[in-house]
């Protein structure tokens, strides 16, 4: 712990090169003599070096932009999309005159007076008005609704993945237990999931859930193949699909995606 009375904010300003001449010399002299401050200042300097590393990324981005062409591109966009520039209103000019003449306190006083007067008038004159539906009105921001929609989409995807997992296990049996398949019931569920996927596609695209979409597409392909086979599934076909599922680590990936969706990643 450094107990030196020298202000540490001074070193920082010194290291950033923002300290005025006289103070800079004082700090430089102090740092020569005080090992504790020198050590702390060195650590601050290394942090600032980290900022330089990030600055390199910014410089790289700056170099990759065509600055000659950009003004014309921006002008085209602005002149195509913008309305005529707003002019300062009469009220704005009065306000500007107030502020330019150094009358900010007066302006603030006038504004406060108007505000208090209005509030007083409102309190005196207001009449309680009975509202329909008991005054219970609910509002939600666009951002909140977006979040809610995203959450719904996530839950539906998790639900779809879970049901698909059960159906696939029914068809193929777990790799370890080699349980017997029950194609009759599972086939109907697979068809149901295929139609559900059509609805889910819109949600997956809308929220750009690329990984979830990729795994749902793979499941859909399997269901489509299963749906094309009529009657009992031949053992060879079943083994082929089982291999495919194991090879692609489909169950593991379904679990990973489910976990990510449940954690809201």
């Amino acid at each position, binding site marked *: 712990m450094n107990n030196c009375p020298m202000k*540490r*904010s001074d070193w*920082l*300003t010194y290291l*950033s090169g*923002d300290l005025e001449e006289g103070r800079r010399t004082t700090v430089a002299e102090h740092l020569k003599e005080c090992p504790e401050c020198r050590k702390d200042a060195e*650590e*601050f300097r*290394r*942090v*600032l070096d*980290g*900022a*330089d*590393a*990030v*600055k390199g990324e*910014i*410089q790289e*981005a*700056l170099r*990759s*932009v065509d*600055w000659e062409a*950009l*003004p014309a*591109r*921006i*002008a085209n*966009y*602005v*002149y195509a*999309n*913008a*309305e005529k*520039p*707003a002019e*300062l209103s009469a009220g*704005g000019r009065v306000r*500007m005159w107030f*502020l*330019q003449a150094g009358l900010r306190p007066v302006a603030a006083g006038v504004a406060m007076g108007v505000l208090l007067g209005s509030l007083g008038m409102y309190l005196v004159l207001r009449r309680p008005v009975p509202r329909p539906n008991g005054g219970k009105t609910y509002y939600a921001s666009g*951002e909140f609704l*977006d979040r809610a929609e*995203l959450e719904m989409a996530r839950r539906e995807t998790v639900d779809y993945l879970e049901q698909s997992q059960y159906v696939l296990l029914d068809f193929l049996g777990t790799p370890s237990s080699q349980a017997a398949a029950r194609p009759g019931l599972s086939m109907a569920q697979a068809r149901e999931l295929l139609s559900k996927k059509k609805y889910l596609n819109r949600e997956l695209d809308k*929220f*750009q*859930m*690329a*990984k*979830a979409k*990729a*795994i749902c597409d793979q499941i859909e392909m399997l269901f489509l193949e299963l749906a094309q086979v009529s009657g009992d599934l031949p053992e060879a076909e079943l083994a082929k699909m089982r291999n495919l599922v194991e090879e*692609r*680590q489909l169950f*593991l*990936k379904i679990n*990973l*995606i489910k976990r990510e969706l449940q954690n809201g*990643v």
Partner: protein
Amino acid sequence: MDILDKGPHGGLAANPDDIASLLERIQKGDREAFMTVVRLYQQKVFVMAFSILRNKEDALDAVQETFLRIYQKSGTYRPGNNFQGWLLQIAKNVSIDYYRKHRQKRQEWETPTPLDDIPVPVVDKTSDSRDSDLRSAFTRCVEKLAAKQKMVFMMRHYNELQFNEISAALEISVGTAKSLHFKAVRNLRKWLTPYLGMER
């Protein structure tokens, strides 16, 4: 172009009278005056947007939106005020709005990793070595800073603005800007200790 001074990042800055006259010409529909303002400040606005959005295309969208607002508000600029501060304040607000609007969609889903590249748990263990990279650690730590500390730090070190320019852009006093900067660096030092090989 002899009225211009060279600024950081190769950007340029005009003196207040020239800016007032350029904005007046913009209001009269002078496209060339608008392009001159864009040429003067495009890089500064880009650095501000890029610092917040960390993506070139998004930053360029924010630059475009910022100049659209400047065009629309050119009549409300008060001569004598700090134009660059006003502009960067708009750029900051536009970039933050852009970030908030696209945040949900810009999480991991947006970069569609091929399914076969999804890391299985065994592969996951190697991610520790990537995390030790100082630059990514630094970026993460800057993200962790409180909003105002982060903004002051980015303006000082990425935009290379002076404290008086930062105070104008954020509408705070120079003393507050310096104090927020100090707190930001102190926090970064604390969080980066393991990465910089420093003793606590």
